[in-house]
């Protein structure tokens, strides 16, 4: 899994790149010190966060399919359907800003949850790039690092 982070509020440059690989069900290569909760930075009430780009890659598999991503914890933010931005692209484009949103929280953490977003492949073992951000309501405070997302996928090894 690789995570790319950039800021949408400052001129677009990939400000951070990390590569994380799984093998046989375990993390085998973690070159990222940012691995963990996605870092959306500091967001004030009424502000839009920087966009975090994440991609699922599973080199231990021959193929991955049926890839989905879900919002599993809103980090204390009262959910509304115009806060947690998500979109995806086969291109790594630092200018993309999500204009669609998660429509609910996957509270049961299941692959079949209706609020998961299906993500297409960019190759046999890699998902498209997923772009995530947070559009914070004016009356809401945000504690960075507690929003959680999760991947689901089928794989053959």
């Amino acid at each position: 899994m690789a995570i790319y982070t950039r800021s949408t509020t400052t001129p677009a440059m990939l400000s951070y790149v990390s590569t994380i690989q799984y093998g046989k069900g375990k993390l085998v290569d973690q070159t990222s010190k940012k691995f963990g909760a996605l870092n959306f930075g500091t967001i004030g009430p009424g502000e839009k966060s920087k966009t975090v780009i994440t991609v699922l890659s599973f080199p231990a598999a021959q193929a991955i399919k049926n890839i989905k991503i879900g919002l599993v914890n809103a980090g204390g933010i009262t959910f509304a359907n115009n806060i947690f931005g998500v979109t995806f692209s086969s291109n790594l484009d630092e200018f993309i800003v999500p204009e669609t949103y998660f429509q609910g929280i996957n509270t049961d953490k299941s692959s079949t949850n209706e609020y998961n977003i299906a993500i297409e492949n960019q190759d046999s073992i890699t998902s498209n790039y997923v772009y995530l951000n947070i559009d914070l309501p004016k009356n809401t405070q945000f504690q960075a690092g507690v929003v959680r997302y999760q991947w689901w996928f089928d794989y053959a090894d």
Partner: protein
Amino acid sequence: MWNAKTRNGQEINEKNSQWSTISKDVCELSLINKNNQTISLPSNMPEYIQFKSASANMVGGNVEIESRVIGFTFNNMIVCVRLDEKTNNISIEVGKR
């Protein structure tokens, strides 16, 4: 865990072989659940498949296998048996190839 038998009589399983290296030679395929119960597919079907459904939490770093699936093709259909790793529940999924 899946268990397979190839046309030359070799018995192999998930722990000692990669599916991609033997998939075309499989003539028997089964799954064993946590209680050591076996779910077997019909023998000598034209083609067998297996895959796993998994989740990955961005925080923990581990891939968790949620269910294992084995199946076969028959008359342009795919018939699969899914075994839930947590509950041991079994479901059958049928679809067009």
